[in-house]
């Protein structure tokens, strides 16, 4: 893709499809170490994003991400809702009114998203949350800054996958899984998994 508002909207549509496809997996992951609603929450949120975009697609990437953000905030609920909402909102704000994004913009947006999640959720890397998928994704994008949007996002997706997988061995210190203490180890964090899925779907859309 190039990276116009329409492309971002397209990427969000494919993200919605991916979340829908993985809804049961995310429910199951959250059932194991949380309360089982992550898949349903994300699906409700992205389904709403779809219909928002069906009504009208704003004319800058930032504006598209902003309507996605407010939709997620008002539809997802739970911990993931405000966290993803903030991530998209900060990314949108970071992009300002640019109308075509390059790899550097992707880096800016992704870092802003990560900072937003951490500002709200206070989680550090290693706490077994979505932060563990986001941190390596941002690092990968920043390292690969020379490439195309498609290339940096592909690198980010690989890193996010890796980061998500790393949560399996961790003991949760934030979110609902933290109540499990030691018993949270041995399970993939649902939010890290959904982050990896989202980054991957953006990378696929950018191809």
């Amino acid at each position, binding site marked *: 893709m190039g990276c116009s508002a329409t492309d971002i909207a397209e990427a969000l549509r494919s993200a919605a499809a991916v979340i829908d496809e993985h809804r049961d997996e995310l429910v199951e992951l959250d059932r194991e170490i949380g309360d089982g609603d992550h898949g*349903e929450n994300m699906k409700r949120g992205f389904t709403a994003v779809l219909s928002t975009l069906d009504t009208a697609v704003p004319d800058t990437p930032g504006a598209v991400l902003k309507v996605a953000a407010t939709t997620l905030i008002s539809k997802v609920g739970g911990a993931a809702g405000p966290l993803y909402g903030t991530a998209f909102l900060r990314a949108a704000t970071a992009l300002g009114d640019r109308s075509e994004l390059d790899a550097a913009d992707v880096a800016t947006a992704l870092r802003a998203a990560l900072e937003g999640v951490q500002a709200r959720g206070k989680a550090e890397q290693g706490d077994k949350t979505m932060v563990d998928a986001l941190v390596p994704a941002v690092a990968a994008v920043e390292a690969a800054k020379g490439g195309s949007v498609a290339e940096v996002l592909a690198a980010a997706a690989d890193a996010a996958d890796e980061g998500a997988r790393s949560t399996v061995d961790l003991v949760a210190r934030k979110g609902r899984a933290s109540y499990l203490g030691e018993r949270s180890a041995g399970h993939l964090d649902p939010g890290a998994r959904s982050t990896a899925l989202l980054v991957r779907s953006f990378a696929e859309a950018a191809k």
Partner: protein
Amino acid sequence: MKKIINDPAAVVAESLRGLALAHADLLRVQEDPAVVVRADAPLPGKVAVISGGGSGHEPLHGGFVGPGMLHAAVPGEVFTSPTPDAVQAAVSATTGEAGALLIVKNYTGDVLNFETAAELAAADGQDVRSVVIDDDVAVADSTFTAGRRGVGGTVLLEKLTGAAAERGDSLDQVEALARKIVGQVRSMGVALTAPTVPHVGEPSFTLAEDEIEFGIGIHGEPGRERIPAESADALVRRLLSAVTEDLPFERGDEVLLFTNSMGGTPQLELYLAHGIAERLLAERGITVRRRLVGPYVTSLEMQGISLTLMKLDDELIELWDAPVRTAALRWGV
């Protein structure tokens, strides 16, 4: 999963329709976003007391909307915190010059969503404060973790702040009262069976026929430890010790004892447990001045109980005894 539902995604909305029809004298239900509002709200000059959280814990919170308690309740999807716009809708429907107090149970999702709503309200020039209740001693408290959960103490907090607002206390006073209560209420729960979330379709966890989950949360989150089932005497002693040791509650203290059913435990067992708790407290020289027994903070059909203790003084007793008229709690009116 066998449940009396239609579409799992519509359970909360359909249930609220029934609530509205059953209690039209007390409350009305706004749709999309879903909010339960006291029938006579807004009440000019009075602080609005608002609470909310994921559904599946009924009567918490909608069953506590009415004179002397909540002005509005914000029900999220099952076990999912409501979104900021829903909280904002509750604020708009109830809040005037006197401001509002948001009662938030300490779960990451609830805190984040209510925080956002409070910021938005502040931006609109409204005086909205929030207080976070975290009475569950099952979870080790630490700033490096999500911290302790809000459980049974929430009902007491809603009743007492609701009474203070009703008698005309200012927002400063209601907020200070809320913080005082949070400081002196503690709870501990146990589950014998798991709840089943409608959209999940299978039990949240699995316990063997001779296992119980000690220190359970109210979302089927696991507890402190899985232990062998034991007699009611032993179990109630275990729960109570966890609670009394935490604050601590000591000889000479006067308390409210709240024996709560998690939903699926029969009343026969609940009162049996309550009787044991009263006896044990008497043995420890702790005086039970007020009590509440029933399914008030539930986790769908989960079998289990929780015990909540709150230190009492004359002010709290007066507020506890003040009239309340809601679907789930009523006296004095």
